[in-house]
């Protein structure tokens, strides 16, 4: 009882403005939800092995003896339970189910998503589950093993991030991102490590046995900004794209530095002594690790693109290659001790444009869908495990250490960002404003990577202290910073993402300016950004595309993509308000799909500078779904046009008012019935202009006067030419 009314109380505290009925509904939903997931949690609590099977398991589950094959032949059992046979997969599935139900509950819980980011709620759920498990079994719940994390949970998230990375923006800001990632991380690591050592020296009684190398090691793992946490928080915020890509790109690229420093300090700890040469070797290793990851990723990306060229005979498994090659690149680079994150991101970025061209529409959808699904599940699992692993009995607390770590993390990050931005702004065209800098500094969230790394440290007396401190830092950044960053963004009035789609004229002019700048750079002989972009595009067209994209796809590519874009933007185009410009009588109004096809043509056929891909975050997945649903009816409609043309032509000669009005309405009805069977808004738009034109006619349909004939005539003519020309375009 207490459990069921506590959530409703919690919710009503959070959202006092919700009506009582809504609160009542929430109060009913939550117990239902707990009822569904309760047995799951109970299963989890009781089925996880803890080394010594307890006696009361027997009567609860009526389990057969440990060795299922040895069954006393006294009597045949009608019903028997053999849990150990399916134990491992069963538990994994239970955990995933728990994670997914938690996510579901989060999205159903009314106002909570607006206030609390998803990661926080998931950690809280994990804490709850961990608490339940601990309470039931009086021993620590299972923790997230570092291997499972690095090999299974992290790759899907990074792959998803890399596949949907906005390429142009990323490469434009690459210098800044690299500076933040490499120098910023170095600054953080050294700063935190050295200052913590100072703190340890100041408190020799409790912290005396932590050496400098240990502090540096700890600094290296706690300084890393985590892409998972950053993604989950920033996606809900919609800040301007430049800011987003800076924070996010930094979190991706600093993996190279973090991995190297961590391994470096760890190996230093094992060595008897550290020389300057070792430090130099460490420095070289940073470069090797980063570049090595890059090349591994490039190699596998090109291989994937090449393979996808031949998948048209077995289209069903085409998505599989994307995942296999990406995962292979990750594993290969991990094997070679390169940066796995860089490899998988490079692989995704490389293979994307070729795979998208080569592979069928449905396969593209499958790839995107599966990527989003896996990364979503992974992220949820990571946060839940973070919560669960917090409940442990091996914590060691030390006020000075924990507090100074927290403080140092914040201070070091702030100073690092400020210093680097001062340098960067001199070299950039678009200065990074103070508000953006604050958000960059404040958005440095730590996450599960730190957590796994801290578990991997070789055992030494104060390891438990490190674990506790890491957990505290992670919880602090995710909860405090994660929850307050959204109100801060609104308070500081940080520039948000531009909502409006660019207009066609904007796109034409932007392309023209791109060409102009390349031309001017050629004249002057300056090898600037546009020059390199141009060169790459020419290289791409001449060699890569010819080699990596199948012939039959190249010819149709633009037309195919016109339709793809039409379908994809239809959904968005439907929500967009029409432009203010009234269509002039001599020109016909353009259909949304024509607008979309125009955009499509521009963004693909002109020099391919600006690859606007569809959804970028898994929170916008539902938009993709509806666009996908509409794809089918659109293809089905290709056979319809001939019929419709017939209809319009036969109705044209009838100019009599009463009949005309009827037949006009009839035609509108006919086209509307097409939309009923297709359930696609494309054709529903078609009667809309005709209905608009017919508006003056329909209300007066009962008593149509002769003077309405001429305007309707013109309207029909417009309608006719509209339809006929539209068919031509199709």
């Amino acid at each position, binding site marked *: 009882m207490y459990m069921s009314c506590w959530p409703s109380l919690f919710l009503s505290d959070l959202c006092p403005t919700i009506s009582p009925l809504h609160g009542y509904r929430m109060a009913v939903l939550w117990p239902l939800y707990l009822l569904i997931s309760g047995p799951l949690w109970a299963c989890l609590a009781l089925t996880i092995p803890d080394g010594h099977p307890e006696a009361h398991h027997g009567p609860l589950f009526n389990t057969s003896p440990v060795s299922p094959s040895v069954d006393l032949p006294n009597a045949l059992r009608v019903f028997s339970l053999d849990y150990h046979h399916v134990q491992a997969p069963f538990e994994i599935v239970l955990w995933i189910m728990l994670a997914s139900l938690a996510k579901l509950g989060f999205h159903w819980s009314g106002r909570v998503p607006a206030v609390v980011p998803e990661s926080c709620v998931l950690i809280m759920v994990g804490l709850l589950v961990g608490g339940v498990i601990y309470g039931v079994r009086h021993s620590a719940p299972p923790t997230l093993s570092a291997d499972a994390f690095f090999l299974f949970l992290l790759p899907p998230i990074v792959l998803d991030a890399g596949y949907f990375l906005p390429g142009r923006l990323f490469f434009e800001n690459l210098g800044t991102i690299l500076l933040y990632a490499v120098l910023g991380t170095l600054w953080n690591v050294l700063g935190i490590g050295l200052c913590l050592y100072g703190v340890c020296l100041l408190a020799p009684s409790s912290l005396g046995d932590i050496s400098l190398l240990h502090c540096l090691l700890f600094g290296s793992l706690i300084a890393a900004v985590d892409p998972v946490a950053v993604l989950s928080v920033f996606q809900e915020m919609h800040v301007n794209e430049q800011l987003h890509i800076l924070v996010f790109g930094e979190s991706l690229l600093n993996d190279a530095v973090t991995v190297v420093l961590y391994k470096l300090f760890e190996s230093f700890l094992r060595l008897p002594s550290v020389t300057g040469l070792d430090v130099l070797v460490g420095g070289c290793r940073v470069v090797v690790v980063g570049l090595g990851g890059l090349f591994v990723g490039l190699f596998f990306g090109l291989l994937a693109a090449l393979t996808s060229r031949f998948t048209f005979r077995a289209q069903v498994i085409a998505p599989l290659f994307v995942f296999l090659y990406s995962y292979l690149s990750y594993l290969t680079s991990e094997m070679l001790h390169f940066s796995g994150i860089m490899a998988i991101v490079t692989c995704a970025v490389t293979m994307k444009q070729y795979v998208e061209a080569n592979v069928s529409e449905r396969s593209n959808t499958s790839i995107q869908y599966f990527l989003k699904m896996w990364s979503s599940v992974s992220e949820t699992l990571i946060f839940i495990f973070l919560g669960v692993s917090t409940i442990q009995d091996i914590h060691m607390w030390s006020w000075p250490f924990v507090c100074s770590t927290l403080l140092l993390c914040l201070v070091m990050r702030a100073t690092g960002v400020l210093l680097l931005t001062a340098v960067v702004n001199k070299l950039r*065209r*678009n200065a990074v404003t103070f508000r953006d800098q604050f958000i960059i500094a404040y958005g440095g969230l730590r996450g599960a990577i730190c957590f796994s790394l801290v578990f991997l440290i070789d055992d030494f007396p104060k390891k438990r202290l490190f674990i506790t401190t890491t957990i505290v830092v992670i919880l602090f950044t995710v909860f405090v910073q994660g929850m307050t960053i959204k109100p801060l963004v609104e308070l500081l009035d940080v520039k948000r993402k*531009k909502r*409006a789609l*660019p*207009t*066609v*004229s*904007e796109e*034409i*002019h*932007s*392309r*023209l*300016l*791109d*060409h*102009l*700048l*390349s*031309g*001017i*750079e*050629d*004249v*002057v*002989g*300056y*090898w*600037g950004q546009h*020059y390199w972009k*141009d060169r790459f595009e*020419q290289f791409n067209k001449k060699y890569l595309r010819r080699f990596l994209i199948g012939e039959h796809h190249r010819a149709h590519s*633009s037309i195919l993509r016109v339709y793809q874009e039409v379908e994809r933007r239809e959904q968005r185009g439907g929500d967009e308000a029409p*432009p203010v*410009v009234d*269509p*002039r009588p001599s*020109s016909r109004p*353009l259909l949304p799909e*024509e*607008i979309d*096809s*125009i955009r499509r*043509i*521009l963004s693909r*056929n*002109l020099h391919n500078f600006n690859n606007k891909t569809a959804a970028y975050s898994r929170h916008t997945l539902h938009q993709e779904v509806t666009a996908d649903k509409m794809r089918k009816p659109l293809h089905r409609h290709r056979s319809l046009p001939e019929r419709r043309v017939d209809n319009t032509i036969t109705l044209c000669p009838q100019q009599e008012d009463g009949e005309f009005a009827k037949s006009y309405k009839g035609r509108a009805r006919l086209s509307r019935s097409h939309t009923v069977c297709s359930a696609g808004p494309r054709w529903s738009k078609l009667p809309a202009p005709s209905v608009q034109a017919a508006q003056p006619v329909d209300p007066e349909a009962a008593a149509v006067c002769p003077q309405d004939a001429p305007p309707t005539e013109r309207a029909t003519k417009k309608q006719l030419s509209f339809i006929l020309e539209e068919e*031509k*375009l199709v």
Partner: protein
Amino acid sequence: MSVVLDLGGRGWSVWNIETPPFKLSKQLQKALEKENSRQQDGLQELQPEQRPKRPGAPAANGMPEDFEAVLELSENPIGDRIVEAFFKPGQETVDFPSFVRVLAHFRPTEKNRNRDKGQPDPANSRTQKLKFAFRLYDRDRDGKISRAELLQVLREMLGMQVTEEQLQSIAERAIQEADLDKDGAISFDEFRKSLEKVNIDHKMSIRFLE
């Protein structure tokens, strides 16, 4: 070798044409050297940094063929328009100061410019940059981008990849969006309005020209 240039009343800019990354194509570099040596005699005894280039002086002039020597420009879809933009209408040659004045459009905009109403806009202000881009479309210099001109540009940029009908509808759409006074063509103000969301300074600047 340093060249000091008077950029339209906004002060001097010193170009050091031998150190990288600034590197003129060979033709233009030769033209520049010839003119520079010609200008060295007959100049007042000023500080070396402040010796201005006299505009309009007869010098080795660039011809359209020199521009075509820049190879990549021929692969650029609007290459010939760019070359045309350097030449004033009716002129067969371009002298170095005019060349520089055109390039001055591509300097990054200064952020805190005091807007004196009396002084004309410097070459790198947003309006001037947009005017330069406008001139690329408006070849006949009538102050408007007609549909035919827009179609021409689109044809050059899109080439063989789209059908004539699609080109028509794209041009149609662009004019519809931008044309506020319904005269069937895009005037400079309409052009400017349609690009108000685009960061022109970012797009139309070559950084080293500071």
